[in-house]
């Protein structure tokens, strides 16, 4: 049995990265290095108004005063911020009227990624904003959204076309002073998605963004802002891939979500950045700040993430439950293999009365990877009758990997109830035995158990994504099952 298991693990460890191609498109790169001129260069390139530039400069000056944090359970090689290019855009990128005008090579890239850019995908009902390196390429489905006054566009368009909204909300959940990477992002963010759902609107389609880092030696810094006004509903999806490269690339995005009274936002992400090769060479550093605020009473935010990529993942999608009767959820599956490292989890900050939150985190470690869950649940003084349930399980496959759990629970109110459970184990022999007795092969049994283990999270994903995520998991976990 050990042999078969080892075989499974070996095959998983040797599994190649499917999205590792690069696309040859002429790029316009900012000179390497970071200083105020670069910040001005980016702002100018994007034709931004003065207030945006001021914001960036403020953030940059603040960033200079900060030091890279070290508290993660991560081994991060030194990053030379002066050796990165902070802006890379496909050259000659006028706004396209229809898909025919888009560079065929670019379209080809998106086809390879399986991104439903084409009109035919109208059937699947997904509006896509694809961000290629740093610039938003094409947003589909605009007309349907327009009818409902829903704004879904790239961040740069939003800054030009809806400055009031951007001004009001940008940095309101993740201020530029928040942390090292949020500060860096505020200074040099290149693009991202902007989404505004007006009062009472229910977004009829899933909004989706695909991010891809293509050019070598660039960092990608997107900024996503999702605002659901009173009573609005939106489901937002995000996917990420990157080509195979020897050197590490930095990805430091910021996502801000605002849910006003009775609004609901569902945010799902399948993160599959290039994780580096078997020996831990290359791969993306994914240092992302994601935070939502349930601002109004009765609002709801739900995070779902499937993390399979990146050499180092360092992110904690968090929710501030400010309003009364608010609900927040966090569902996560994180798979680490080879030399990958992940330090991820969630923060739930309860401030309003009757606020409820759920955390379900499933970690799977293989190879020589380190997988850490780190989370915080905090009940403020006025969070009467609040409730939290957290469940974080870790599965270990192989004796060289590590699985760690660091939950922080802080309660300042006597009417709240917090429960936290966690387990760490390998696949139980008796379960394997049970399945084998019923005629399943060893590998099938392992894969069935792993899928069952992650099911609770996968079922939270929208249909479209669930298919992709299951495929991704099966690539990672069931590669050898046949």
């Amino acid at each position, binding site marked *: 049995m050990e042999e078969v298991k080892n075989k499974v693990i070996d095959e998983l460890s040797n599994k190649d990265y499917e999205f590792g191609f690069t696309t040859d498109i002429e790029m316009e790169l900012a000179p390497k290095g970071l200083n105020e001129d670069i910040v001005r260069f980016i702002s100018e390139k994007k034709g931004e108004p003065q207030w945006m530039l001021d914001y960036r400069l403020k953030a940059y000056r603040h960033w200079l005063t900060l030091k890279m944090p070290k508290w993660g359970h991560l081994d991060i090689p030194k990053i030379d911020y002066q050796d990165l290019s902070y802006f890379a855009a496909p050259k000659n990128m006028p706004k396209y009227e229809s898909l025919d005008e888009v560079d065929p090579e670019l379209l080809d890239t998106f086809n390879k990624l399986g991104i439903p850019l084409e009109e035919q995908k109208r059937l699947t009902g997904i509006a896509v904003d694809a961000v290629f390196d740093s610039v938003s390429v094409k947003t589909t489905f605009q007309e349907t959204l327009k009818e409902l006054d829903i704004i879904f566009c790239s961040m740069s368009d939003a800054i030009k076309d809806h400055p009031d909204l951007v001004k009001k909300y940008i940095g309101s959940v993740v201020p530029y002073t928040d942390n090292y990477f949020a500060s860096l992002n505020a200074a040099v963010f290149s693009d991202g998605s902007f989404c505004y759902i007006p009062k009472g609107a229910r977004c009829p389609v899933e909004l989706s963004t695909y991010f891809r880092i293509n050019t070598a030696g660039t960092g990608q810094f997107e900024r996503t802002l999702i605002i659901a006004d009173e009573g609005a509903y939106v489901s937002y999806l995000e996917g990420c891939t990157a080509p195979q490269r020897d050197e590490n690339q930095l990805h430091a995005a910021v996502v801000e979500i605002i849910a006003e009274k009775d609004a609901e936002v569902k945010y799902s992400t399948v993160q599959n950045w290039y994780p580096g090769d078997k020996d831990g060479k290359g791969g993306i550093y994914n240092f992302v700040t994601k935070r939502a605020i349930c601002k109004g009473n009765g609002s709801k935010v739900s995070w779902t993430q499937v993390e399979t990529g990146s050499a180092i993942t360092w992110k904690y999608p968090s929710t501030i439950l400010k309003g009364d009767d608010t609900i927040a959820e966090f569902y996560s599956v994180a798979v680490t293999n080879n030399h990958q490292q992940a330090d991820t989890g969630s923060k739930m900050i309860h401030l309003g009365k009757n606020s409820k939150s759920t955390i379900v985190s499933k970690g799977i470690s293989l190879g020589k990877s380190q997988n850490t869950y780190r989370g915080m649940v905090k009940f403020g003084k006025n969070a009467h009758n609040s409730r939290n349930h957290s469940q974080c399980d870790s599965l*270990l496959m192989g004796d060289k990997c590590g699985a*760690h*759990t660091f*939950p922080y629970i802080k309660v300042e109110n*006597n009417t709240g109830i917090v429960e*936290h459970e966690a*387990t760490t184990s390998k696949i139980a022999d008796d379960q394997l035995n049970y399945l084998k007795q019923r005629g399943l092969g060893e590998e099938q049994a392992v894969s069935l158990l792993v899928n069952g283990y992650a099911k609770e999270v996968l079922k939270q994903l929208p249909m479209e994504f669930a298919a992709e995520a299951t495929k991704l998991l099966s690539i990672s976990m069931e590669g050898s099952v046949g």
Partner: protein
Amino acid sequence: MIDYYKELFEKNKENLESGLQLEQIRQQGLKDFVRMGFPGNKMEKWKNFSTKSIQKNRYELNSIEERTKLDFFSKLSGLESPNTIIFNNGHCSYDFQIEESKNGVIFGSIKAVLAKYPEKVLKYFNKANKQNLNGFNAMNSAFAQDGFFLYVPENIKIDFPVLVTQNYNIDSYQLINNRNIIVLEDDASCEIVQIESSEVGNKAFANNITESFLGQNAQLTINKLQKYLGNTIVIESSFTKQKSGSNYSCNIATIGGNKLRNDIHVKLEGTNCFANINGGFVLDENNEVDNNVYIDHATPDCDSNQNFKGILDGKSKGAFTGYVLVRQDSQRTNAYQSNNNIVLSEKANISTNPFLEIYADDVKCSHGASIGRLDQNAMFYLRARGLSEEKSKELLLSAFAMEVFKDVTNTKFKEVVSKEIENKLLKD
């Protein structure tokens, strides 16, 4: 402030050495203390315990040796033991210094034992607290004055629980650094009951370290009752090393405490060890208690268990940090961690951090934590059967807290603890 302690050390060097001759250990301790200083709130392990109130006072070295009043024993009804050692303000009582049995057991004040058998003490001194982990540990190494020493030779089982009492009652800012060493050779077995207390007017700061060494198949049980009144500040660190097949059980009942920190470090160095760390704390007013348990599974086939329960009232602050480290080759480890708390008042607050760090795959590790209030259904059940609200509450809460001591075999200790908890709850 660090300079102040440097001066204090120089001033009292001879005095300290005349009591406990440690030479190099003291120098190293001072060096480490100067290097590390007082741990600050920004340090991960000290987030829940502010050292500001310690830093703002200039503590003098405690030199008053006061005789123990015998009425102290009246508080210990039922726990009296033929093997008793009494500490008053950190100094061993005059009447009891060292006791040697025919079977080789040595028990007495570390001062007396060091003077008579220096090699026996120095063989173990600072061997479990190897690196002076933090400023306070280093401070203890530099300023250690007294403590108790217990040596149990191979195959010896001490029949009666050994009783160690510690009482603080000084109305000025004084520093107490006790160092206790417990050595159990292979197959030895012993139970220690520790009663720690302080009086209302006490201002002393106690910074104690206990080092325990368990030989193969040795069994050590420590049952501890902490009942501190007044402004007492106490940091109790314990370091335990276990050889294969040994069994360590530590049960701590904490009844209040102005500012108290328990640091429990256990290193499982042999196979088939078992460490069982339990604690119950009942806090009110401005009590502040921070429990930290670090269990290092350095070898395969070991089990560990942590179970802490807290009841918080008034403006009290409670914290639990449990840490289980399973090293890469420590296969077939079972580790269990549990922390449940009941918060009774609006102003009380609690932090719980049950951490697991695991590098081996064939393990079963789990933790559970909960924070909540009294079960209203259970209350209703009892009220419906004619119990008063106060009595029902007391019954439920003491049952809740006493659950962690269910494995304690010393029924007398259990009775005392149960009574103390009851008194504390009824007082509220």
